[in-house]
């Protein structure tokens, strides 16, 4: 049985490598917000209030491009709707927690944290204080995101644009799913999702980000039915 502290540290340790892509991306996001002409306090407040990576930038880009606030807010909601799927997966492991703890932990659910904690949970189902791993991944992400976006806002884009560091974001997610390429069913689901995301890329409100997982999960349900 691992202690709460050990689980928390393990969470920090498991998500730490992803900071290699999160920190430059955060700096770029902060810098873009200011470059678009928004109040720096407002740009930074988004990192606390929304705490949602790319959705923050989409929000500012839409507003500066003349979109209505309704469109911008809807887009953020739709982009982040993928968290509903993460929550459904994590609920199994967080079930025993009190409502207050569930409400607090929810704020820290992020893509990479979900991915790494979910991998850990699957291997360590019997641990009693599993949620500390999720708090570890979430807090690490939170602190790094705050520092990175704030640096981008204050210092401007000191990460040279020529380096194309936005490319680190798909690489971080490749690192998350790459081991599942061993399983043909997962490969089919991934390709379905990837191709759907390209096909529906121009759908309104960036909805490709939730349409393609829904299609891919439908295919997944067919696969799991057939394989029985």
């Amino acid at each position, binding site marked *: 049985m691992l202690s709460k502290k050990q689980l928390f540290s393990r969470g920090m340790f498991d998500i730490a*490598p*992803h900071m*290699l892509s999160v920190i430059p991306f955060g700096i770029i996001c902060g810098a873009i917000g200011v470059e678009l002409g928004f109040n720096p306090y*407002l740009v930074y407040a*988004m990192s606390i209030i*929304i*705490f949602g990576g790319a*959705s923050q930038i989409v929000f500012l880009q839409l*507003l500066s491009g003349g979109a209505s*606030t309704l469109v*911008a*807010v809807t887009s953020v*909601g739709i982009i*982040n*709707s993928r*968290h*509903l799927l993460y*929550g*459904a*997966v*994590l609920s*199994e492991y967080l*079930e025993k927690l009190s409502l207050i703890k*569930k409400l607090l932990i*929810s*704020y820290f*659910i992020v*893509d990479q944290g979900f991915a790494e904690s979910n991998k850990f949970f699957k291997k360590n189902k019997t641990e009693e204080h599993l949620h500390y791993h999720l708090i570890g991944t979430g807090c690490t992400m939170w602190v790094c995101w705050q520092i990175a976006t704030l640096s981008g806002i204050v210092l401007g884009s000191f990460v040279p644009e020529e380096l*194309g*560091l936005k*490319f*680190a*974001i*798909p*690489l*971080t*997610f*490749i690192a*998350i*799913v*790459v*081991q*599942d390429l061993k399983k043909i*069913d*997962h490969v089919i*689901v*991934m*390709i379905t*999702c*990837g191709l*759907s*995301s*390209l096909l529906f*890329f121009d759908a309104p409100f960036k909805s*490709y980000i939730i349409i*393609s*997982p829904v299609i*891919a*999960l439908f295919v997944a349900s067919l696969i*799991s039915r057939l394989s029985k």
Partner: protein
Amino acid sequence: MTWLSIIIAGILTYFTRMTMIVLVNKDMLGDKIKAVLEYVPSAVFPAIIFPAIFINDYGSFIEMSDPKIFGAIVAIIVGYFSRNIIATILSGLVSYWFLIFVVFN
């Protein structure tokens, strides 16, 4: 106005994170649904990966000779065999830089 919309966007985002964790309990998830939820990472992350590689900043498809495709392939191969996140990210970035700074320069 912008402040208000950020707060609303924040509340919306929080709800996407919190809703399922608070509302879903074991009895609601049968074995069939659980089997499908196993696929969530594989069903969600390619929707972030594919557009970030194949679609450029202006919303159009890249050419098949784009360095990002090469970088992604290298990252997949290195990641698959090394099982290491840092090696995956760095190999992808370095091979991408190699193409844009050395080969295509």
